[in-house]
């Protein structure tokens, strides 16, 4: 049913656009201050290496993430977005990450509906102690987005001209 709806719309993903050989995706990572941001700091202090494509934005809690941020990111600068918060039950603000999760799922459905591939926006739980996990998550997201190809180029070609 969903697929049928998708077909009726102009798909945003254009597989025929070939990325130039030196193309690297830009990924925006929106991390909560208490768990995931601290976790990403730990990745740094542990000197665990990960692909340099991610640009991190700090928010107090994953529940601060407005769907608008995701849409704006994909619209303007990013090829993919990662939102990361505390593990369920560990939210510094008691229940914020549950709201975030629910809101994220709805947003994802919307983006899907519009024609974005579901891997363009991803969600993860990374605690302050999970430095290695953060590196893994970033590596995976980067790889996923690389597979999907550029969103940005497409936009430049279609909107600027």
């Amino acid at each position: 049913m969903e697929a049928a709806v998708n077909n009726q719309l102009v798909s945003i993903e254009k597989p025929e656009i070939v990325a130039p050989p030196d193309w690297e995706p830009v990924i925006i990572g929106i991390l909560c201050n208490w768990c995931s941001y601290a976790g990403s700091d730990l990745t740094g202090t542990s000197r665990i290496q990960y692909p340099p494509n991610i640009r991190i934005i700090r928010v107090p809690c994953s529940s601060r993430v407005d769907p608008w941020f995701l849409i704006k990111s994909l619209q303007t600068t990013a090829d993919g977005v990662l939102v990361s918060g505390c593990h369920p039950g560990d939210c510094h603000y008691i229940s914020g990450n549950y709201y975030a999760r629910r809101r994220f799922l709805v947003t994802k459905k919307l983006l899907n509906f519009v024609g974005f591939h579901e891997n363009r926006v991803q969600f993860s739980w990374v605690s302050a102690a999970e430095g290695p996990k953060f590196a893994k998550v970033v590596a995976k997201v980067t790889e996923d987005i690389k597979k999907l190809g550029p969103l940005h180029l497409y936009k430049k070609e279609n909107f600027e001209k």
Partner: protein
Amino acid sequence: MARVGVFVCFCGANIADFVDVPAVVEEAKRIREVKFAIDYKYMCSDPGQQQIRDAIVQHRLTSIVVAACSPRMHEKTFRKALSDAGMNPYLLEVANIREHSSWVHQKDKKAATAKAADLVRMAVAKSIANEQLHEISVPVTKRALVIGGGIAGIQAALDIADARIPVVLVEKSPSIGGKMAQLDETFPTLDCSQCILTPKMVDVASHPYIELIPYAEVLELDGFVGNYKAKIKKKASYVNFKTCTGCGACWQKCPVKVPNEYNMGIDKRKAIYTPFPQAVPNKPVIDARYCTMLTKGKCGICSKVCEKGSIDYKMQDEIIEREIGAVVVATGYDLWDPKPYEEYGVGRFKDIITSLEFERMVSANGPTNGVPVRPSDGKVPKNVVFIKCIGSRDEAKGIEYCSKICCMYTTKHTILLHHKVHGSHSYVFYMDIRAAGKGYEEFVKKAQVDTGATYLRGRVSKIYKKGDKLMVRGEDAQIGQVVEVEADLVVLATAVVPNKDNPDLARLLGVSYDKYGYMSEAHPKLRPVETAKAGIFLAGCTQAPKDIPDTVAQASACAAKVCGIFAGDTMKKDPMISTVNKEFCSGCQNCVTVCPYGAIVTEEVPMGHGSKEMRTVAKINEGVCQGCGSCVAVCRSMAISLAGFTDPQIINEIVSI
């Protein structure tokens, strides 16, 4: 027009080795709003900060970006530099080019530099949208809640109360004293535990600033630092403490005998009881599980013998509330149950006991009047084998960590055995002797040399019965041979595990805990007594296993922290909280539902200027708001914004990459 200053740090070689710092500066200079950009070896050093201060004045900067380490590290330092130069500290943004770039992309300097430049650009963009913010002050309730009345809770309560701050001390059992009250003598000085503890217990009871609530539990904690509200359940004791004189007639006459927890079940107590003779408060309670009057409606002897008529079988649990400003959690520890050690025959052989059982037996006020005996036949043992690391450092059967105190209390037990039983001998099976502490190694030497305790390095593999002896088999790795010791009594040094109520309590307090159940400190080194939740502190074994000196030190540290919070009549609070634009608010109250702190209420405002028609809008209690931003994301009319993380700030970051 914004005038931004950019300060890029080398962090010695930490950043400079993997990021081309001058290139980042050049890149920053190309941004229209950047009027000044410079790099420096250590931006956080005083000369580094001086450059920031000077530039603010010289170049009339309107916001500052420091590209250095994580803002979690030095944001406060740089904010201070700003305010020293007369600038609002919240006009600072930190670009994290160390943890997020130089340290994690060490193999690709070009990419790391490009990323650092991007991070700087994002920070500049955000800082342009920064607003001047001011710290908020919140009134404080100057009363502390201490949960748990062991030595940690007692020490914390006394220290806080001595600073003339009221304390509510809640203890689960009928008396304070905790595990320390069960000990005989303490290492490494062998001073009598009762002699040093009971005066403190009495102090607690008589202190004008301490409200002692025994036989009670904390049910709920609402609010935030400085303004908590606690609900406490006073369990029904069936004895009116106000009239009871503690004469003891009731428990002397009570016919129901049950195992005595204080003596580890070695002897019996009555269904109406005071836990031990030195109990504080020295008032009996009725154990409703056993009292036949309460279970079957038959007996009533205690009521008959009580001259004061203090017995009240109809008493109900009572729930009371207290307003408090800070909490000290001191719930102590439990001992690990050694049942999984089937190869030792735990549960089958009566003459295998735990260390605390041994401690009770050698205690002067213990069930055997200070002489250890074999539970099987009541004989006094001569050869006693002590086995350390029971459950500790044993992933297979127990827990991974070292319980920290067993090495020392076992040493103490060998000495006590030597003192109490003439001609006795101790064998200690150990893996390592961990005697790091003042006077500890000397204490071990005393046990080994003066009392001649035999130390055998190896884990015991099997215990079996031969006649009335227990044969204890283990390797002595020193000589590389398997040895068997004929033992009269075997004492297991069981591991320290967290109080089994810890996870439940942690959840109701909103504090995190680890996989074992110990509550987590905010930082393992630099904030060892704080929790991540402001105003809640940890003392003693609630946080990790520790001995009495460490526990007392930590309890006093908690007291200092509590007194710090209560030093003024108000508390300073981060201004990063939500505010409502009443003009835009549609009164849908979505924000009220999502706020995890109940910080959002509604108020009535006039429909328009001078109008008499009223409409409902949201109102944020700035004392309660913690700044999570949940309300901002759900607000349909964009009426709420979160200071420091406003929509323009974040969107600026997104579009500037």
